[in-house]
């Protein structure tokens, strides 16, 4: 599904990613953990194609295709989805209108007609039930005045609607209370299949109790310094990151 080779990326003169190697196969869940400033969100943005970052070395392959030259929307058309840590507000544009535009843009890129309104509504109904979303919520302006939990739930709702191949959840647990965390995690688990893959970026073990990873990677200073199974997350929760830093420096 996703293969990252020796990825270096910088913003301005500042190098942030310094040689990332990561392979994610279909059906897998990977967690990326690490202290603040280690490059987790940058990695997510670079995979999604944010132009502020410059890839200076290495490659990102999505289903064996190098996506380096693809614009962010083209990567999205190819099945990359990023759940934002801080979803932006778009006043006056309803959640429904936004998702409709997104779906039809992707369909257009694939040479398909717009999705018939009937099918769209049916899908919206199914997915909003899956995520326990009140339908009134869908006619509100995108993220405007949403609580932290509502914003994150809206991100996962969009993920459900867009059915990506690769979903990257950037700090989806931040700002969520325990109920919201459960609902969002349930949603992600229901959307998981053998054909798609999920990368979960998080500070805390907490989310991983709900979305159980197959692999856990520790990102430190722009590099993956340690990888393991889900037990690694527990170890980090217990001991913090210092022991890894020591291990790396040793």
């Amino acid at each position: 599904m996703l293969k990252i080779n020796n990825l270096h990326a910088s913003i301005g003169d500042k190098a942030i990613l310094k040689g990332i190697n990561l392979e994610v196969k279909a059906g897998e869940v990977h967690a990326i953990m690490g202290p603040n400033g280690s490059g987790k969100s940058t990695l997510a943005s670079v995979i999604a194609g944010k132009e502020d970052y410059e890839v200076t070395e290495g490659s990102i392959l999505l289903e064996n295709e190098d996506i380096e030259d693809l614009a962010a929307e083209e990567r999205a058309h190819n099945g990359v989805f990023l759940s934002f840590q801080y979803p932006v507000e778009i006043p006056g544009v309803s959640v429904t209108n936004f998702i409709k535009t997104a779906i039809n843009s992707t369909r257009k890129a694939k040479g398909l007609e717009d999705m018939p309104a009937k099918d769209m509504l049916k899908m919206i109904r199914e997915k909003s039930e899956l995520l326990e979303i009140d339908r009134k919520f869908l006619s509100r302006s995108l993220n405007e005045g949403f609580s932290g939990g509502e914003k994150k739930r809206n991100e996962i709702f969009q993920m459900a609607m867009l059915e990506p191949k690769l979903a990257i959840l950037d700090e989806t647990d931040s700002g969520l209370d325990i109920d919201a965390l459960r609902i969002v995690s349930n949603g992600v688990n229901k959307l998981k299949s053998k054909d798609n893959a999920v990368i979960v970026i998080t500070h805390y073990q907490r989310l991983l109790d709900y979305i159980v990873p197959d692999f856990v990677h520790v990102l430190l200073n722009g590099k993956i310094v340690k990888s393991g199974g889900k037990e690694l997350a527990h170890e980090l929760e217990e001991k913090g990151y210092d022991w890894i830093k020591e291990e790396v420096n040793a």
Partner: protein
Amino acid sequence: MSKYTEDDLREELKTKEYEYGFFTDIESETFPIGLNEEIVIAISKKKEEPEWMTEWRLEAFKAWKEMTEPEWANVHYKKPDFQSIAYYSAPVAIDPNKTLDDVDPDLLAMYKKLGISVDEQKKMNNVAMDIVVDSVSVATTFKKTLAEKGIIFMSISEAIKEHPELVKKYIGTIVPIKDNFYAALNSAVFSDGSFCYIPKGVKCPMELSTYFRINQGGTGQFERTLLVADEGSYVSYLEGCTAPSRDENQLHAAVVELIALDDAEIKYSTVQNWYPGNSEGKGGVYNFVTKRGLCEKNAKISWTQVETGSAVTWKYPSCILKGDNSVGEFYSIAVTNNYQQADTGTKMIHLGKNTKSTIISKGVSAGKSQNSYRGLVQIGPRADNARNFSQCDSLLMGNDCGAHTFPYIEAKNKTAKIEHEATTSKIGEDQIFYCNQRGIDTEKAIALIVNGFSKEVLNKLPMEFAVEARKLLEISLEGSVG
């Protein structure tokens, strides 16, 4: 010929250049250039006007000669040479009895290119249209249906002949001939326009619509619109404008007068898409318009405008709230791109008691354009309990454009309540990236954001107009990022 569909229109809207920038070769009869008394008299004669009308025009011309162009607006342009303009141009061989089938096929082709095929408009939208091409109406439809209700909807030239008593009674009462430089010029040389009268207690059963175009190169267009809603009546009037591309600047100085008598309501919606000039700021229409309405007791006038065109816009649709309990509304979206300049807003003049006004203005600036809101809220000494709410929002794209707000408030009554809110925001890269990440390309993302920003105003437009307005917002901002 195959049918022109929405899809065809959509295809056309994809092109980045001003897609209405074509010129149809219709034989026109044009007066010699320049302006003097003889020309004014000749226009009047050409239109077979009664003497009082000729006199009225001459009086306006006399006043205009003494006036100077206003310079207070936040716009900069080379002043037109009023002696190098032809003041009358009409497609030749107009037969008032002819049907659409008889209309010049070139002209019909032009409408199709504009997406305003008369046939389709008639069928699909239940819209009666009085189309003005270069000053003279060539097609008036639905006249019969309207006539049964006693509604008069015709070109102003016809009205001057057929209903002189109504025209004489109301013309120039709201916008006097000496009101301002452009209004005086219009009064002297107006070529055509629309006249509408809704009798007492009649609700007009359909949206009335006029499409104006400038066609003949080098001719200014001076429309005159007069709309009278008698007591207790209702009318919704749509005005849409497109103009073909010309290199030299074209002058457009229209006057619109609305009269809402006791308990009447007028909704006046405009989509203005005159040629804005090319991306270097060359060419484009100068749009200097005077629009004003008078509300008698319990009457209501609502102006809604979507302004995407013209190189220079100078326009302040206003309401004189003379009658007690009367209501004035102004909903506006003004979009400027490249080198466009817009100075637009409204005046709400509260004279009667318990009068209310609402102003919602949305300005979107891109490229190197300048977009100004200028509004006056005036509360007279008699206007007890007058209320106004104003909201002016500006959206900026890029770093080279400007948004300006000039609100003026004059309150001479202590019971007045006036609220003013203003915001300025910028389309953020974060917003664009968010949309991109969901598969929405940048141009579509901007259209989405701008539509959201303008929603309160777009919602005020009649349905079929709102669709067109959305398309216009989209095309006028194409190429504004990248």
